[in-house]
């Protein structure tokens, strides 16, 4: 078979599904008036990295930063920060001498993936809604900057309005790192003074911190007034 024949044979495979599917959708007389089911449609997009509930639980337990389908960029980095906090907690626990204190820290560990699960969900939402990160897509701004009549970049904000996803993710990360740092301080305290008597209070504080983090995971820490629609418009 000649090279030309091979190309001719390959061409329909590369192009036909694309054109065919869209043309079929375009010919559908009810298409303009009937809204699609985006959950189904976008679900097939996320099937590129399809994951089951078991996979997700395992990934959360391992604090695997690459398991969540959150793109490559700002949201991935932020989610990875959350995973790093849990891994830091694990390292702190691993360095502690065997004893009751270490057992208590190990008991607290299963509560952290629940918090990471919230970070996963928020990061996934954010990656779907803001694929270019919290800033406006620079490619769009560049295209608009090439306008021969007006600089249309000024007609849209530099940052798309986000009523709380970014803040929520920052909040979860802060809570997770607070827990990891508390565990680290506790471990350091034990190393410095093995006969300390106030460890119970420290542990209670750590447990309270984990509980507060779980409770506050969904509640944004701050509230950005700039994100109000009045300011946006």
């Amino acid at each position, binding site marked *: 078979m000649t090279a030309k024949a091979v190309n001719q044979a390959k061409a329909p495979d590369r192009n036909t599904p694309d054109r065919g599917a869209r043309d079929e959708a375009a010919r559908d007389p009810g298409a303009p008036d009937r809204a699609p089911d985006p959950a189904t*449609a976008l679900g*097939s997009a996320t099937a590129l990295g399809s994951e089951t509930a078991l996979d997700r639980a395992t990934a959360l337990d391992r604090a695997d930063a690459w398991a969540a389908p959150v793109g490559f960029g700002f949201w991935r980095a932020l989610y990875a920060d959350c995973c790093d906090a849990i891994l830091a907690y694990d390292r702190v626990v691993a360095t502690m001498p065997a004893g009751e204190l270490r057992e208590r820290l190990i008991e607290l560990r299963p509560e952290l993936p629940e918090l990471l699960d919230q970070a996963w969900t928020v990061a996934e939402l954010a990656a779907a*809604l803001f694929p270019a990160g919290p800033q406006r897509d620079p490619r*769009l701004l560049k295209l608009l900057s090439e306008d021969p*009549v007006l600089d249309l970049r000024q007609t*849209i904000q530099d940052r798309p*309005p986000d009523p709380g996803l970014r803040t929520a993710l920052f909040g979860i990360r802060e809570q997770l790192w607070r827990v990891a740092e508390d565990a680290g301080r506790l471990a350091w305290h034990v190393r410095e003074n093995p006969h300390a008597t106030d460890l119970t209070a420290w542990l209670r504080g750590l447990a309270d911190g984990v509980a507060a983090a779980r409770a506050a995971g969904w*509640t944004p820490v701050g509230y950005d007034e700039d994100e109000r629609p009045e300011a946006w418009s």
Partner: protein
Amino acid sequence: MTAGPMAERTPVATRVAEVLAALRLPPSPRGALGEFGPRYAAARQMATRYAAAMAVVGDHPEGRARLTEHWPAIRRQLERIGAMCEHAVGRQPPYRRSRRKRRDPYDPKARQRSLHAVHQAVVRLERMVDAAVAMSIAVVLAGIDPASARRRAEVDDWVRALTDALRELEQGQLDDDGTTDDGTDDDGVGDDEAGEDRVGNAVTG
């Protein structure tokens, strides 16, 4: 030797086509669009973002109803941008052009006006999608914290913002259908000398 998982994986291009078909987006303009290609691609990505907002909002009664109601406007705007891009690269019959333009379809001023009109349409679409995305987030956050009056008020604010953006989008379409204040017609290719002069003046200085 058996094929590995990579051999069974669906090509990304096919998957993207399936998603676009499932979203029932209008068909992309055929052929090369030149410099208008990235503009159309940006507009299509905005429509996909809107669809993502619809997916995020879930079964929330008001949010879902609003976004579903406005979906045809998004679709029409994307279709319209596609037609403007096709027209701009000269693949549609220039029946609205003047006799002089028919003789010279590659007039640089016509290109500038087309580019500006496409950009304006893209900006309007982006603002609409921004409002839809923000409303969907507000709905999600209000669902997590149903007792918060502030969250509920925020949803209402964004619903209003979405309505305003829709009005702006449709107003823009109406303007573009006739002669706009900057002298361009629906495809951005003005057929009146006044429009040419105004845009030309803006370009030159």
